[in-house]
Each structure stands twice: as C-alpha cells, then as structure tokens.
C-alpha cells in the first residue's frame, strides 16, 4: 500500500508543479519542460526522501520496488504527454464535435461542417511544426528530412510495414 501511495503522491506532486509553472509562465518548449518536471522529480525523489523523515514509512524497499515506482511514473508521464499534445494544440475533430453539439438536435449543415474545418490551414501548420521541431528543413524551396526526421519516419514506416497497415494521415 505504501508503495502505491508513494508513487501516486510523486506523480501528483509533479502534476501540481507543472500546473504552477504553467500558470506563472507558459514555457516555449512545453513538452520538453514537462519531461524535465516529471522525470526530474523522479530523479531527485530518493534524495528528497532522505531529507524528509516523515516520508520514511512510504520509502520503496529495494530495487524491485523502485523499479515499480519508476515504471508507474514513466508510464503515466508518457500517457499524460500524449494527452497534453491534444491540450496544447486545438484538435480540429474534437472542436468540430463541440461545434456540431452546440447546434442541438438540429445539428449543422454539411456546408457548415466543411466551412468549420476549412478555416484551419492544416498542412501549413504541420509543416511549420515540423520545421520548428527540426524534423525537416527547407532548402531551395524543397522540404527535406533532417537526420532526426529521417529516423522518426523510418520508425513509423517500419511499424506500418510490420503491421501491414495502409498509409494513413
């Protein structure tokens, strides 16, 4: 039970720190800052436990319990970061669902739905984001993959081939 309480408390503490930081000032590299906060707190938690005698009863015993805590923390952190990407940038699909629901039982006409989605410069936004994240570069009006972008593309291409999925997106 102590193990569960300690791991939950650690994750909640990281989440509260993240909320406080975000309300003081929104970081430029948001995902990177999230990783620093969540993994940083995990990294310093043994030291924090040593300095706080009141937390001794919750201290994980042995490497296997620490491994369990680390696994819990990393799994939830990655899950939260995935969710955060939908919080950080508006999801056109989810916004459309709310837009349609706002119209009540009559719904929206097909034209209204099309107009709603057409206002988003989707391709331009994705190109900008890929340039910003150093996944592609623009040279002589051509977009080319950086080494980082090439590695990422290969990972997804490999997954697609293994699972026999058709090209999506």
């Amino acid at each position, binding site marked *: 039970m102590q193990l569960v309480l300690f791991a939950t408390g650690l994750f909640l503490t990281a989440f509260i720190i993240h909320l406080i930081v975000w309300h003081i000032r929104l970081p430029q590299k948001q995902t990177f800052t999230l990783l620093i906060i969540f993994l940083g707190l995990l990294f310093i938690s043994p030291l924090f436990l040593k300095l706080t005698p009141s937390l001794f009863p919750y201290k994980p015993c042995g490497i296997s319990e620490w491994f369990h805590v680390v696994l819990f923390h990393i*799994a939830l952190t990655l*899950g939260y970061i995935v969710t955060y990407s939908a*919080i950080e940038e508006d999801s056109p699909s989810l916004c459309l669902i709310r837009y349609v629901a706002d119209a009540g039982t009559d719904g929206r006409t097909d034209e209204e739905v099309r107009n*709603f989605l057409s*206002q988003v410069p989707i*391709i331009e936004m994705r190109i900008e984001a890929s340039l910003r994240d150093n996944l592609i570069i623009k040279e002589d009006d051509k977009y080319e993959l950086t080494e980082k972008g090439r590695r*990422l593309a290969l990972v997804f291409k490999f997954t697609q081939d293994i699972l026999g999925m058709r090209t999506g997106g």
Partner: protein
Amino acid sequence: MIVNLNWLLAMTPIVGLTVNTITHALFSRILNKSSVSISIILAFICHIVCTVSISVLVLNSMSLMKGDFWALLGFNLIISLALAYGYFNFINLNIASIRIRLLKEILISDKGLMLDDILTIYNPDKIVNTRIERLISGGQLVSKNGRCVVGAPFILLLANIMEVLKHIIMGQGSRLGKEKQ
C-alpha cells in the same frame, strides 16, 4: 523468493505490453487491413487479461493483506492502461497523423518535396473530406438529410473533458471556431 516475486510483479505490465504488441502484429496480419480497430481492441484485451492474470497469481503467492492485494493489483492495472494508451497513440499516429504521413512522403520521395508537391498529395479539400469521412465511418458524427449531428455521446464527453483540461492547464479554451460561432 519474496524478492523474485516483487520483481515479477513489477515486470508484469511490461510483459502485458509485449503481449499487446505481438498479438497486435498477429491480429493485423490475420485480419484484413480494413479492421485496424478490431486488431487494436483484441490486442488490448490480451494485454489486460495477461497483466491481471499474472498479477493475481503473483499477489496470491505473496500472502498479503486484502487491502495491499487490491492496491497492488490496481497499481499494475493503471500502469498497464497507461502503457496501452501510449501504444495505441503510437499506432494511431501511423493511421491519423498528417505530420507523420508528411515525413513518410518526404522519405519515399528521396529528393525532398516542394510545397506544391505536398499540396498535390494533400489538398485542403481532400483533408476536410478525409476527416469528415473518418468521423462518420467511426460513428462520431451522423449525417442525415444533409445535416450532421453527434453520433457518439462518448466522443462529446471526451471533447468536453479536453476543453475543461484546457481551461485548467492553459487557462483558456479552444480558439478554433470561436470566430465562426
């Protein structure tokens, strides 16, 4: 012996994730390409069944108090759900992400792509149509008599939860569509 059981308990969610990826690859191959979601769901079920079964076996061998038993079982279940959620999103990027598709198109092209090439592959009308078709075929939207209504209350609940989270974390809601409403 106790140490080994602790390790086994801690490793169980990873075993579950491994089962998820292997069964997903198998189901994807056995079932045809159109049933992507079925293979994901079947693999997820295998993942959770595997995690819960092994966890219960290990916890029973550890002779714990009832509260500890359920707490540790729930703990492993939460880890497994988080890992499955991460895996699902990784797979979903291959299915739905325009950005990943863009990277793969540039990879295939070998010499890079001009903006016009990209817009030929992906013109704005095609993107809008694909998105609407996906929402309708997934049951999230229902189109009847030229009007669209929400088809799945769950997706509306999810959209509202995301909006509340946006307000709590970012201090503001979605900007998209505000001018139009």
